[in-house]
């Protein structure tokens, strides 16, 4: 017993170091959403408030660019409005629409903190649980995709940006629906890579890459980017595709969080399948 006490007394610095190190490893690799979210819930509100204060002062510098991108988006949306189309019929009947049911809702938000230079980038936005945001929702900008919500506090949420080693987004080539997984290799924030597209699929540069119909987070066909370069390594079954992203992450200010109303239903059905084999 005396030896034990002596041991603790002699190595208490090491024991302290080891315990704290163990603690941080547990927090770091608990990719269980609950643990991660609870850490960020405790610390996140504080940090986000700080970033919002900083952001409210630096926000004015980018107003011109934000205006331009919002104007462009307005113009695009206006051209999709009903009154922008020539009406080709005589009668117009209003019916309770049973063919089209709304599946996706968009919640607009402002970016209060963002980075593009790290290997794993995160974005903080100023909308949270009170505004209906939950973890695992897709996030887009007016140009293209942005990322996935990871944790939510009352007024803020953290997004795992598409520029992150752990973000994998299901995408497809628009012209032939060949699907693959969008993963960032950490080199350049303007480019990402599309993996697991079979090599027999014909490709050419400037092919549109859009979100696929497999993703529960994004509606099908949202613009992601275009093929910048592609090649097939010897002995590989897949194309190596470099995708030029439409979203400019370095000037990101306004984003939309996507709520999939049918997500719970789809997940439940797919979870039933898991017990099947």
């Amino acid at each position, binding site marked *: 017993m005396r030896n034990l006490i002596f041991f603790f007394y002699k190595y*208490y*610095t*090491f024991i*302290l*170091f080891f315990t*704290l*190190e163990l*603690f*941080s*490893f*547990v*927090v*770091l*690799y608990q990719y269980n959403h609950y643990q*991660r979210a609870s*850490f*960020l819930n405790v*610390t*996140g509100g*504080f*940090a986000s408030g*700080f*970033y919002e204060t*900083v952001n409210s002062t630096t926000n004015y510098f980018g107003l011109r660019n934000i205006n331009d991108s919002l104007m462009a988006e307005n113009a695009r949306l206006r051209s999709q409005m009903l009154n922008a189309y020539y009406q080709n019929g005589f009668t117009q009947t209003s019916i309770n629409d049973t063919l089209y049911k709304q599946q996706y809702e968009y919640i607009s938000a402002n970016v209060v903190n963002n*980075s*593009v*230079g*790290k*290997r*794993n980038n*995160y974005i*903080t936005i100023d909308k949270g649980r009170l505004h209906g945001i939950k973890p695992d929702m897709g996030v887009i900008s007016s140009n293209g995709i942005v990322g996935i919500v*990871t*944790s939510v506090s009352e007024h803020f949420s*953290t997004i795992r940006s598409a520029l992150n*080693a752990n973000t994998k987004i299901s995408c497809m080539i628009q012209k032939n629906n060949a699907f693959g997984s969008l993963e960032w*290799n*950490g*080199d*350049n*924030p303007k480019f990402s890579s599309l993996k697991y597209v079979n090599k027999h699929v014909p490709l050419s540069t400037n092919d549109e890459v859009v979100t696929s119909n497999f993703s529960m987070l994004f509606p099908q066909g949202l613009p992601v980017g275009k093929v910048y370069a592609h090649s097939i390594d010897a002995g590989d079954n897949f194309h190596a595709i470099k995708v030029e992203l439409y979203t400019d992450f*370095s000037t990101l200010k306004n984003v939309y969080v996507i709520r999939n109303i049918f997500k719970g239903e789809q997940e439940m059905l797919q979870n039933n399948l898991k017990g099947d084999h």
Partner: protein
Amino acid sequence: MIIDFFKYIAKLIFIILIQLLVINNIELNTYINPYIYIIFILTLPVTMKPWLVVILSFFIGLLMDTFSSTPGLHMAASGFVGYFRSFYLSFACSKEDFEKQIAPSLAKKGFAWFTFYTLLLTLLHHTVLFYLEIYSLSEFFRTFFRILSSTLFSVLIIVISQLLFYRNKESR
């Protein structure tokens, strides 16, 4: 004693603010991510108890994690620096340094000593940080290159900041 305590708190806040508001916004390249906040750990007095240094380094790591939504990452990395600092100092400092209770700085220990000391511990910090961040060996060499370039940048910034303070102290 109390004055010292407040001095450390003020220094801690100042260094964290510099890291978050200035250094984190540099974003030259994805290969250059300097982290200079460990200068706080590097310049603690040599006679400070090792357990206190360890606790302080975990605390500054926790602060960094709070502001970069990476639970545990900076904590693990700066914890290593805090623990191995005492090791390194125990044979890199003379008895005289311990008696005078100096805080390692460019002015007290000279350019070569301080640069080497900073380089060694920054390299340790960045190695732990960047490999834990990617958590796979699939990008081993790319991460290695990222560590080297970021370390050089961090050391450069730390040494330059020391030169600024060095001149201040001389003129007093």
